């Protein structure tokens, strides 16, 4: 007879989180990572030392190819984590959303107690020509790229179709842009810290018709880092852990033309549903959501796919200001989102976790603080929706 084994599922908490400012950095990869890791480690207010880390997962597209191979080994050398099992996680813009999920799974499986998840991208040290190359490597190269598409073009196709299918216009996207610039103007870590007037955002330079410059996120440098811990060690590290209540992830056809609908992201819907189910929560329980607004239309779709708005109602949700901090039903992109906080590709997913971690602990600037925030969500998308990771966090463990 086999011995009885008591299986106790461990709970996972975020105990520390930090990031660089996003934008144009003088620092390179090593310097940015070291800064983000220092910030994250310093935010752990109890017993913690980098030597306690068991594993590390670092998300990056390795934009520019500067350190395409063995990125994680190089970076962890510069953050006092030499000798650990480390690896780079690549899922385009969702790289560190998946790095975070991998870190969570490592603890959940019982193989590790303390794990670091992070992300990094250096994008502004390239010539414009080389940058445009790297900006388009995550679509279906053979078919989309040779049809003239980079991501502004791909999302422009989605936006035009959305306007055709639903009661929405470009003005609804402008509302997303104005809101996220407003939030970003209050965030000292944001790439673009200034508000934009509706009229100006509505008449920006046309990048990919119907998307203007104000519909597109900036090209940012940056790094972010998060420390996760198993419940039995988390209590030594902090009195105010932020619990990972749910994790969901999914993938979809890489190419837009292979999907039955281009006005919804199936990967987001699946990942969101799994995360909500695990957390035993619904979209109505979410106080703030950091969603992947690489383009304004992406935020409109995300509010629908994550259940904050009914299908076809995402435009109205934006028009009515439902996502504005302390005004609407859920604060969407209180950090400024990718649109204003910035989008250093590999850093974005764990950067979203940094924001939710601080919001749930009441540690952001007072004007940006979501009042009474108990539950937050992060939504990190790769490409035009080929990959997606959604996480739900709570101040309470269950």
């Amino acid at each position, binding site marked *: 007879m086999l011995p009885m084994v008591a299986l106790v599922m461990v709970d996972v908490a975020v105990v520390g989180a930090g990031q660089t400012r996003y934008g144009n950095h003088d620092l390179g990869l090593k310097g940015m990572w070291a800064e983000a890791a220092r910030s994250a480690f310093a935010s752990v207010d109890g017993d913690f030392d980098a030597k306690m880390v068991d594993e590390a997962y670092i998300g990056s597209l390795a934009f520019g190819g500067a350190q395409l191979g063995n990125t994680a080994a190089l970076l962890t050398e510069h953050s006092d984590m030499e000798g650990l099992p480390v690896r780079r996680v690549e899922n385009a813009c969702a790289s560190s959303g998946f790095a975070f999920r991998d870190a969570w799974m490592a603890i959940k499986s019982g193989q590790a107690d303390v794990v670091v998840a992070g992300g990094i991208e250096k994008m502004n040290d390239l010539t*414009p*020509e*080389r940058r*445009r*190359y790297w900006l*388009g*490597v995550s679509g279906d*190269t*053979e*078919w*989309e*790229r*040779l*049809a*003239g*598409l*980079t991501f*502004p*073009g791909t999302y*422009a*196709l*989605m936006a*035009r*179709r959305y306007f*055709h299918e639903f009661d929405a216009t470009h003005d609804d996207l402008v509302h997303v842009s104005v809101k996220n610039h407003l939030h970003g103007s209050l965030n000292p870590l944001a790439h673009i810290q200034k508000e934009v007037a509706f009229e100006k955002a509505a008449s920006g*330079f*046309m*990048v*990919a*018709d*119907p*998307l203007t410059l104000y519909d597109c996120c900036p090209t940012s440098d940056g790094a972010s880092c998060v420390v996760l811990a198993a419940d039995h060690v988390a209590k030594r590290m902090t009195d105010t852990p932020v619990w990972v209540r749910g994790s969901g992830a999914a993938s979809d056809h890489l*190419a*837009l*033309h*292979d999907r039955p609908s*281009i006005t919804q992201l199936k990967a987001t819907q699946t990942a969101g549903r799994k995360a909500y189910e695990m957390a035993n929560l619904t979209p109505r329980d979410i106080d703030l959501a950091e969603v992947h607004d690489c383009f304004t239309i992406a935020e409109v779709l995300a509010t629908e796919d994550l259940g904050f708005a009914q299908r076809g109602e995402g435009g109205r949700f934006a028009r009515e200001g439902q996502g504005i901090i302390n005004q609407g039903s859920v604060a969407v992109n209180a950090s400024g989102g990718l649109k204003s906080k910035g989008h250093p590709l590999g850093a974005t997913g764990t950067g979203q976790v940094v924001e939710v971690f601080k919001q749930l602990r009441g540690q952001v600037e007072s004007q940006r603080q979501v009042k009474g925030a108990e539950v937050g969500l992060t939504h990190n998308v790769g490409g035009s929706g080929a990959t997606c990771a959604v996480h739900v966090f709570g101040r309470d463990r269950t």
Partner: protein
Amino acid sequence: MTAEVWMGYLVDHCPDFTVVQSPFVLGDERVFGADSDATTLSIAAVLHRLQHENVASVAVPEGIDADALSTACNIQVWDKESESEPDWDLLLSEEAILVLARPGAEVEISVMDVAVEVDQAFHEAIVAAWEMELNVLHVSQGAYVSQAQYVEAASPRLSLSGQMGRNGAVWPPRYSANTSQKENGVHRLTPSGRVLSWTTLSAAGAPSEFSLRAPLLGGVSTVLLELVDGPNGVFLVVDDEEPELSMDAPMELVVRRIYAQEGFIRYGLKARAIPA
């Protein structure tokens, strides 16, 4: 004579020959459009001929991409080493005029009544851009599609060959079990569809493969089409026409140059409005 417009070109169909001409003129001379060349004209000529009769083998002169022609039209290119004679010859001209003729046929090139005058400065700039792009030393920073990778997908790219899966036509082809070619066979899709969405990327936002020509063309336009056989696809719009794009508008697919890299031109299907 009154020209028949076929795939964006002017066609004169006679019993023993087919003449294909570019609609564009510079002074007295026919010139190629912004993404056309002798290969794209030859593909149009053969596809037009195939509407009327079988084309068994074609002798292809230098200056025409024989592989692209063969793949796009699903025909045999005549082998110079063979003992048999070709059924058809392709004859090039100094201008953007091409003839597909039976060997020994007496060809008469009619004066077509369509002549679209092109701007000389624009034409010269496009020609110069293609020359730069075609230089073997020109390696754009584009997401790299190697020649081998291009050739592997040449048939679906040039002739819309797909598969017939359990739930209908599949394109581009898959390697998954339920759509294997071995099981289901190659299925050529009808090269037309309706617009589901479209965009024009500014020159600054276009992929770097197009960086030499996009500023001259005012960006690049792409359509998402629902093909008449079912699958969807994204396609560039032809460079030398400016169709008014709208939802559900019918479009046809024609072979044009896409871009060049490492001295090799990548051809593919592009969309053009179906004339009313």
